């Protein structure tokens, strides 16, 4: 490592920690019984999950007629949630892959849990198309394999099929990337654990890691290759999700900016969720010295950047809808902003475009309470973005006699809450059973910008 740090660089880990101290502090939550606050959170999340399971079972038994859809609004809550959760996942891959390639060393404190969040979010997202199939036990029909169903072969021209491949690839690569990153830490836990069972489990999981020079060097090569392979996935997944809409001919859906605009929005929403989770985690698990205000500030800057990109995309869409001269395009956008769903539109604009502008102020970026509040607004705003795009483009189509509204049913709302329950349940379990912060990687940056006093 180069020992030449500019005087403008700041430390990444606070508190002048020794390497052993880092291992102990990060592993501590795994070695003690869960705290009361953990149990409380788990109870709430698990109850929500149970409610969701009930709601999903009911939908599968009765059918998706339990949703609030009608002939004009044929897609609404379910697909909104799907896109929302897929988007949440993007921050993890961006942090773990793209920031790695850009040598952003501050990523080391947050990449592990952001990647775990990605996996859980993609799992949540995957539920919605499954439910929407109506007969989830036939989900394997989306796979292209020789079958006896005659012409029932998945249509390769359909973006929905592209989704199947894009998302399963994304999940597999993210899971592989996450696991590879975990291996050295799993070995650390194996070596430190005293109980036989724990030693055995972590021994198997760490794949015989022995910490030799050769192993580390191979590991670093694999990690770099996976980062390179995961980088296009950050862009491809949400691009293809956007094509579910953009390949159509519906005004408000068919617009060429959708792929990059959805990707920016996904990263934005993902950072909203990472901020929410990290701020809670660092407080509850006492990780202030690892996830410092510097980390939070930098995540805020990315949220500001991507939020502004999303704002520019909203503006471009609106402008081009007018510029196109097409009365249908113009109507769709005016209807969005001033029609019956104007409230949803303005929630979207104020949460996604206006709120992140507060991150221009360093005072707010470094004030954890404010950042937490803003991050919640981002989560809300990005859910509404998908709702606005999907529902407002459908509910008033070319024939005014077809104009309808849309109200979600209780079952749909319960499903959404249930999926949040699933997400938080998984995340809370993750905090207990695996090191939340990459021990090996944090150790590699502990000297970052810490030696400059010796230099001069």
């Amino acid at each position, binding site marked *: 490592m180069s020992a030449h740090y500019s005087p*403008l660089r700041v430390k990444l880990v606070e508190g002048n920690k020794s390497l052993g101290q880092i291992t102990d502090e990060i592993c501590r939550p795994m070695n003690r019984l869960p705290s009361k606050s953990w149990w409380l959170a788990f109870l709430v999340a698990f109850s929500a999950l149970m409610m969701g399971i009930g709601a999903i079972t009911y939908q599968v038994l009765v059918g998706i007629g339990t949703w609030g859809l009608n002939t004009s609004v044929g897609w609404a809550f379910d697909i909104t949630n799907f896109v929302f959760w897929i988007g949440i996942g993007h921050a993890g891959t961006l942090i773990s892959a793209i920031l790695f390639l850009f040598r952003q060393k501050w990523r080391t404190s947050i990449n592990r849990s952001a990647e775990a969040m990605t996996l859980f979010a993609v799992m949540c997202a995957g539920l919605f198309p499954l439910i929407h199939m109506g007969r989830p036990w036939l989900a394997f029909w989306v796979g292209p394999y020789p079958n006896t169903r005659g012409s029932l072969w998945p249509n390769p021209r359909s973006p929905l099929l592209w989704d199947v491949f894009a998302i399963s690839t994304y999940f597999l690569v993210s899971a592989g990337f996450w696991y590879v990153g975990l291996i050295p830490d799993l070995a650390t836990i194996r070596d430190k654990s005293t109980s036989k069972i724990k030693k055995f489990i972590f021994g198997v999981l760490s794949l015989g890691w022995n910490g030799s020079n050769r192993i580390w060097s191979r590991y670093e090569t694999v990690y770099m290759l996976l980062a390179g392979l995961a980088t*296009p996935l950050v862009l491809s997944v949400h*691009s293809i999700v956007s094509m579910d809409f953009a390949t159509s001919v519906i005004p408000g859906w068919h617009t060429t*900016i959708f792929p990059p605009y959805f990707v920016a929005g996904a990263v934005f929403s993902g950072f909203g969720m990472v901020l929410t989770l990290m701020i809670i985690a660092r407080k509850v698990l006492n990780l202030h010295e690892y996830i410092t205000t510097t980390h939070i500030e930098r995540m805020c800057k990315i949220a500001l950047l991507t939020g502004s990109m999303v704002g520019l*995309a909203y503006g*471009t869409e609106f402008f081009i809808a007018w*510029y196109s*001269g097409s009365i249908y395009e113009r109507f769709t956008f005016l209807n969005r902003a001033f029609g019956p769903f104007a409230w949803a539109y303005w929630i979207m604009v104020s949460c996604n475009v206006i709120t992140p502008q507060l991150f*221009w102020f360093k005072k707010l970026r470094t004030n954890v309470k404010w950042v937490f509040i803003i991050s919640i607004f981002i989560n809300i705003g990005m859910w509404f973005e998908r709702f606005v795009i999907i529902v407002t483009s459908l509910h008033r189509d070319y024939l005014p006699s077809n104009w309808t509204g849309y109200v979600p049913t209780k079952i749909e709302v319960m499903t959404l809450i249930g999926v949040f329950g699933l997400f938080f349940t998984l995340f809370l379990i993750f905090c207990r059973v695996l090191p939340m912060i990459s021990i090996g990687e944090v150790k590699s940056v502990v000297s970052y910008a810490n030696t400059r006093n010796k230099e001069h």
Partner: protein
Amino acid sequence: MSDAHVENVTYKTSPRMKNAAIAMIVIGAITFLWQYFQEAGELRAFANVLVSHFYLLTLALGGAFWIALQYVAGAGWSVVVRRIPEAMTKALPITIVTTIVVVLGMSYLYSWSLPRHPSEAAHEEGGAATEGGSSPLMVSPVYSAPAHKSEAHEKTGSAEGEESADELRAADEILDSKSWWLSKNFFYVRMVLYLLIWIGLANLLVKNSRKQDMDKNVSHTKANLKVSSIFLPLFGLSFSAASVDFIMSVEPHWFSTIFGVYCFAGLFVSSLAMITMITILLKRRGYLTFVNEEHFQDLGKLMFGMSTFWAYIWFSQFMLIWYSNMPEEVGYYEVRFNGEYRFLFFLNVGVNWVLPFFALLPRPNKRNMNIMFATSAVILVGHWLDLYLMVFPAYYSAPVFGWTEIGIFLGAIGMFVLATFTYLGKANLVPSGDPYLQESLHHHQ
């Protein structure tokens, strides 16, 4: 490790290079005039100026974007090459001249700037126009075929041509409905605004950076961080709008929301290629000894990434329009993809993405100056082709290419070289006061 010291060196402008640049400018000017005075040759002259104008603009503005990006990201490694994008911004004032030429050629380049209504036409053209717009087919001209347009343009001399062109324009409800934006006066206002923002902020960035050479004060870095944070959002807005104004409006009925992003992708990758190329040129002449293969590898990685980003945006626009096949939009690709431009259409992807992709994928290639130079050159030619394909199919149903295209483009390059190397001859080649300089000098992967 001890701090490395870099001596203050400026580039010695060679009179040969200067003369060559001036010769190129003269060739460009002569070609333009020669083409302009050909029979019905004005359109081709102005279309070439438009392509060259946007080409220069993307390179020069790309330099400013690069500097701002490095400040905002707190990048250390790139400090040693920063003087080059700084020099590139010195080509921005040239775009004032090229903008003026584009404005002079407005009536040829932008059909929306022509009078559309018989009364207007009578007012402006001395009553030569006829009644038009009676055909029901003409009520909503969603997309007027370029073949027709170019005919109309080419026949400007004959009365027949004027009539048919006037008829087309007379019934143009779509253009009428957006005449607020696509009007001459507002267009001029926007041009002035764009140039003020770009030149003003780029000069500020360069000025602070130069001052730092003298006093080695960190405060200039902090000041430039602020300027960059102001520049980037303004750049996003103004460049998106400018790409609609300059390029998209040559086919005023066509629209695509991704267009600004597409132009931005071209700007990023081409300016990066230009930075790399100038760095190598200087290095070959014995300057910038401290720039090594580590820096080239990073430039190469970024070029690889941005070329792929360009391909991603290119594909998004093409695929979505092709797939949806809507009459409002698809005509744009009808000419380019199904028409006479088909070969160039695929060549464009080849030179802007396929070739750079494979050339820059292996690590040793990115660390090899010759390969980096050749790839940058391919991308820079590709960028011209990309712009050519955005502009020319609007006027000609089949590609035109000849000495006119080469000559006018040479003129643009001459101006760029003159502006850039004049600056490099005045400024210290390395920002010696930058607080990140040591990181950059000791940079390794």
